């Protein structure tokens, strides 16, 4: 779910082109956009406080066999939320799961990991390497 929450609708749809067709679904709720109050902790590790709200789009769907899928994703991308909800439902089917994981979730996770690694590498390039100037008084 976290992987789908971090991916936009277009990149999920692109992966679905190479995946087994998703089952038909009906909408149970949404997609609808609302807010989740993001909380922090005072001092970083103390009592919670309300930092501010984040837009979130949610969707819940039901497949013909009754399986229900849910998705909550940050932002206002209704298509992303609906695709994520259908995938959540479809992934509950043990027969369909491996192919969908391989075609959709794993490649998206790899893309996200690569982006995160690039960020980390740029950050690491700005890490200061102190050397001690022994003569400095």
């Amino acid at each position, binding site marked *: 779910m976290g992987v789908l929450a971090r991916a936009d609708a277009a990149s999920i749809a692109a992966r679905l082109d190479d995946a087994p067709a998703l089952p038909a679904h*009906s*909408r*149970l*709720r949404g997609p609808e956009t609302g807010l989740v109050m993001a909380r922090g902790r005072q001092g970083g590790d103390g009592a919670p406080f309300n930092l501010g709200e984040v837009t979130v789009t949610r969707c*819940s769907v*039901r497949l013909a066999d009754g399986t*229900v899928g849910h998705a909550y994703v940050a932002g206002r991308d209704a298509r992303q939320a609906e695709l994520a909800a259908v995938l959540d439902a479809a992934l509950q089917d043990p027969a369909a799961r491996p192919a969908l994981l391989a075609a959709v979730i794993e490649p998206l996770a790899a893309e996200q990991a690569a982006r995160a690694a690039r960020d980390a590498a740029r950050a690491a390039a700005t890490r200061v390497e102190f050397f001690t100037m022994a003569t400095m008084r």
Partner: protein
Amino acid sequence: MTLTPGFADPVPDAQSCFRALLEAMARPGRVQRIKALPEAPVPLAPAAAAALLTLADAETPVWTDGGPAAEAWLRFHAGCPLVAGPGDAAFLLAVGGMPALASLEAGTEEEPHRSATLILQVAALEQGEGWHLSGPGIEHVHRLRVEGLPPGFLAEWSANAARFPRGADLLLCAGTRLAALPRTTRIEEAG
């Protein structure tokens, strides 16, 4: 347990239901018919379910005796927290017996609007016969017949009125119909 959908078109449906609830509260005893109805699970009456979907959200604690299917449905579609004690709820949906009105949140003298609203499913509602209602929102008299109330209801209702401005409000629902009894409405038995 399978979840059923809520309002087909949440924003307009909730708006039209809210309009009907306003009408009902503004004209106590007049029966409103709710047009946009959710697919509520048994044992929820469609009008009662629509009212709760319209009024309840993540910030309103709800109490219900409607059983696990109703609880799951409400938690899902209204996003409301469910509480075990009737006195802790902002909205209550009673399908079996009526919780004692005196046990419900009645607000404070400073903030009487912080009181509970009880949505009560009854067997039948008919306007133009039965009780004589008077009070704010009623020019002369409205008549309302309600079937399926507990025997001591009128005594509880007058005790509720005596707490004014504190007190609970009541929404009576039967099938797709509902009528409101705000705390200011006086009831006289037909006779």
